[in-house]
């Protein structure tokens, strides 16, 4: 399962939010998602075993937003960050 989502970041205008997913020994097979302007953006993450894995979520938004990424099956949230998308 996903034990934490950290290092949430974005390069302005890139259309992508990046993050790092940390998993335990069981790995993960689930969606991570974020809500921007009430619209859900997600990506599916499949990893085997423990580790830190860089991930990204594509989006279509711009401007300043408070972003939180949610691991939907593990029910883990990243810390909130303000990103200029």
């Amino acid at each position: 399962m996903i034990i934490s989502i950290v290092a949430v970041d974005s390069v302005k205008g890139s259309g992508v939010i990046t993050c790092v997913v940390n998993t335990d020994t069981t790995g993960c097979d689930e969606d991570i998602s974020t809500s921007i302007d009430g619209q859900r953006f997600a990506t599916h993450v499949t990893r085997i075993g423990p580790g830190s894995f860089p991930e990204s979520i594509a989006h279509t938004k711009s401007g300043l937003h408070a972003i939180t990424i949610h691991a939907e099956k593990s029910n883990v949230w990243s810390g909130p960050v303000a990103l200029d998308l």
Partner: protein
Amino acid sequence: MKLLPAGLCLCCTVFLLTAQTQQQSQTPQQGSATPKNSPAAQAATTQKKGAGSSSQNTQYTSIAKGGKLPYGKSVTLTGQLSDFKCGTQAISDVLAISGVSASYLGQTSPPGSGTITGNTWTVSLGSLPADATINLQLKITGKLTPATADEITRELLSDPRFIGAVRGFFAATNDQPSSPVTSAMAAQEAEMALNSISAKDGALTQILGRLLPSCTVATDVTTAAMVGLRANETALLNIQTRVSDLLAPGVNLTGLDPHVSAGDAYKYVQSLSGQQADSAVVKLFKRDYEAILGAFGVEVVAQLNQGVELTQLTDTADLNKYAGFDAGAIYVPRINELREFYMVHIYPFGPVELDTSGGVPLKARWSIALGASIGDLSGNASSRVKSDKAFVYGVGFRINKYFRISAGAMLYRDAKGNGLLNEAFIGPSIDISALPGLKQVFSSSSGTGGNSSKATSSNPAGNQ
């Protein structure tokens, strides 16, 4: 030398300038603990002679400690950068000082721009009026030192008001499908969060105010600081999350205190190397922390050139006089008469400051007296002085600004024997030319504060 009140003395200008050029050069010297009138205490100023003009360097330390500014000549303040203090805080500890200018309340000309050479600064004040209170305003500009920027960043990021403002931002921008938060709303909330920490009782205002107490610096710096911080608002809003990320499960940064502050976390990550130092979570934290640090170290600095003002109250020296005109009474014991007299008292060692508070050099109290006695005060029906006219001469000793004791001799024609006689006298007098409105009579066009008790190191008044 002025022989008439200033308003009638335009014709004396050339003579005045001549008198100024006769001033003696002096050696500059600082000092405050030295007794007044000691040689060391008499040289906070340096006079520069020139053809028809003169200027005077005055040590800022002597002014800051209550000394007087000279009047009537071009005054240049000088000192060390470390002399500038806001309360007990040396400004040079907070700012890397790059500029200084000086002015005083009521000045009609532009403030004098100073020069800085090494650790020494000089700034011209121009010519000042005599016996006036000078509200001196120094404007000091410079960049926040790296140590100060680091201190501000550390304090701000751990301040509860700042933490509360950031939490408020994320609470207000919690994006839900049922209540979407637009980009404009988020920007508005970010602005509110930043404004709340720069408000009068906000974290940033108080931190900056504490750095330079007693100076009017906080408002300027806060405004400037916010300009710098706005450019890095996401770094500022995210720093708490970046610290939390360092402690998140799976990140495995050993030895990091779970309650670590942002400042201490920065120290910690700087000690990391290899894979840990290259991890995304460490890099992001460093990037955002250094952006905030840079906001104070660079952007704020440029704005800080608007300056720090400190106010220094001081006085200019009272008028320096070449001579005084006295009226008084003399007692002539041998003929047992009390007579009125009028005398000019000439200061033989050069002009002296009228104000004697705090003491003056002994030689500045003595004067040579010449005058006339033209009447009897004691009701003597048959005065020995023929036609009541007598020439008087002698020496005077100034007790204070207005009063003097004179002693000497009275030369008169004896009404009985018709011989020319000389009789000793002694008596008190008042210096009429020290009275307000008349004190510019016999005054020097320029002078120093050598007689002031507050001028712990200044030029003796009689040295011109």
